[in-house]
């Protein structure tokens, strides 16, 4: 009895803020678009979901989102791992300032930071200008895939670094010493001791970057080219440009299912390897 009463607020919270909104989205995805306020009628039609799953336009958009998120995650991992390792192995008094430096950009507005990138990458901006001078011809950066990936990696890198740091800083330094003592040169110590023992951090970081990156809307909208029709952008235009709420909801539901499958698979592979 006592446990039930203690957990009651938690269940209420989950019900009101998580289950109910999702149920509403799911219900709308089964409705039909209509003129009026709100612009749909409830019902039980699978048309929108079927369109999302069959129409090549949406399929391409999903695949593109997964690809962009995947490549961004990989870039974050390749950049974030050395950074996290360097912080974890830095002298004690340097660690907190370095971590702070990683998190500092988050204390200013996200939109402001993305807009700052527009200034840097724009045709008249200093980065594009410098590259044009080096290349001896005009170099376009803004509204290209390069700008899109730059924005994604810039935004999500801390989500990779922090869990990696957490897992690397917990490694017993004596393990590295033991490996060295047994004749392993530095690269072998990394491959056989540091890397395998930091895999939980790698998995956590990849999930933390990949999931929000798949649904990202702002970065492709502000930095990416018109071809970068990622799911987030498509969803936005279904809602606000087409006023097709059931279609937008069907996209949202599909994205959610997709994103539940990915971490569940990672978890599954992980627990299989552990056995």
């Amino acid at each position: 009895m006592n446990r039930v009463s203690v957990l009651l607020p938690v269940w209420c919270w989950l019900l009101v803020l998580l289950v109910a909104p999702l149920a509403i989205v799911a219900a709308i995805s089964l409705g039909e678009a209509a003129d009026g306020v709100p612009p749909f009628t409830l019902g039980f039609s699978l048309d929108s979901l079927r369109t999302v799953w069959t129409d090549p336009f949406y399929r391409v958009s999903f695949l593109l989102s997964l690809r962009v998120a995947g490549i961004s995650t990989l870039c974050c991992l390749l950049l974030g791992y050395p950074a996290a390792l360097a912080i974890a192995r830095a002298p004690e008094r340097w660690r907190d300032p370095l971590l702070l430096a990683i998190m500092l950009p988050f204390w200013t507005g996200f939109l402001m930071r993305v807009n700052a990138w527009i200034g840097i990458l724009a045709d008249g901006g200093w980065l594009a200008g410098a590259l044009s001078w080096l290349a001896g011809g005009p170099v376009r950066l803004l509204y290209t895939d390069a700008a899109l990936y730059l924005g994604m990696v810039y935004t999500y890198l801390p989500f990779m670094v922090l869990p990696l740091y957490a897992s690397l800083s917990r490694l017993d330094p004596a393990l590295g010493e033991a490996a060295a003592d047994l004749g392993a040169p530095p690269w072998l110590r990394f491959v056989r001791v540091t890397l395998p023992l930091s895999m939980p951090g790698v998995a956590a970081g990849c999930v933390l970057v990949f999931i929000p990156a798949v649904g990202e809307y702002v970065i492709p909208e502000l930095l990416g080219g018109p071809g970068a029709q990622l799911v987030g952008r498509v969803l936005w235009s279904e809602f606000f440009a087409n006023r097709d709420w059931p279609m937008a909801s069907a996209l949202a539901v599909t994205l959610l299912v997709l994103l539940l499958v990915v971490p569940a698979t990672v978890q599954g592979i992980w627990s299989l390897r552990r056995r």
Partner: protein
Amino acid sequence: MSALLRVEGLTVRHGATVALDDFSLTIDDDELFVLLGESGSGKTTLLRAIAGFVPPSAGRIVLGGVDIGPMPPHRRPVNTVFQSYALFPHMSVAANVAFGLRGMDRAAVRQRVAEMLALVRLEGMADRRPQQLSGGQQQRVALARGLAPRPALLLLDEPLSALDRALRAETREELVRLRRQLGTSFVLVTHDQQEALTMADRIGVMRDGRMVQVGTPMAVYERPNCRFSAEFLGAANILPVVVGAGGQAELPGLGAVRVVGGAPGAMLLALRPERLRLDGGEGGNRLNGVLQASMYGGETLTHSVLLANGAVVRVTQALHDGLTALRPIGSAATVSWAPEAGVLLPS
């Protein structure tokens, strides 16, 4: 016996503090050398310097004729058993033991691992993870892992400190037996004097980054060369003494005693509690006092006797025949000893 390892004038600084101060030491082939000292005496620093984890600011470390000082840890033919064991948690026991075996084919590795696990009596545990083993078993895995690559020298950093009492006594014997069998020299670091006395072929007593005394356990215990050595290894009563000529000496406030050796002048007389007698012994030195306390220890009884000058000496009596009654506290007691039982130390 010939010298296996020579440490010459080694100095290690940690910031402003000097952990090892112009330190020299020779380790022979086929011996168990125990470095004994309090924490902060530099004994672990010495071990880490030999393994290559601590860069010396001066001095040489010569192993088998080769100066290993400039080599990184992974090139040095020494292995370490770490205090925390530092077993790889993501590898099986067999993979841990095989870690240091490189440049061998699979079959040879498998055979060596089996050999080492048999040596430490862990044959059935090859596929377990270290976390699934008891502390004693983990300690043996660490030992097998360190010995597997056939190091010229095995370094052991407080290898028994994480074990409980009963297991520690058993493991001491086991380590000594195993080392004799292999003939590999061990350098073992400990702060436990009992461990040092029972296991060592030679003991080095360390203090403040310097070697205080080196010798066999018997030599260091029976003939300490300074007050620190006498008090750190076992118990000792230390009395100031003025040594005269012809084996005569004066204990200030207590009277004349006979001593062996020593130079004329002020010195310290060290007396082991078990070499003293209470109300007995003939032909030796005698001091009168009052029994202040008696502590019963099962196999021994330790008396505290207050002497005329206010000094208290401890006398340990072995209870060969058991104990039925204690002497009354406050009764008169005479402490006696043979002159050769006392050791004269510089004051």
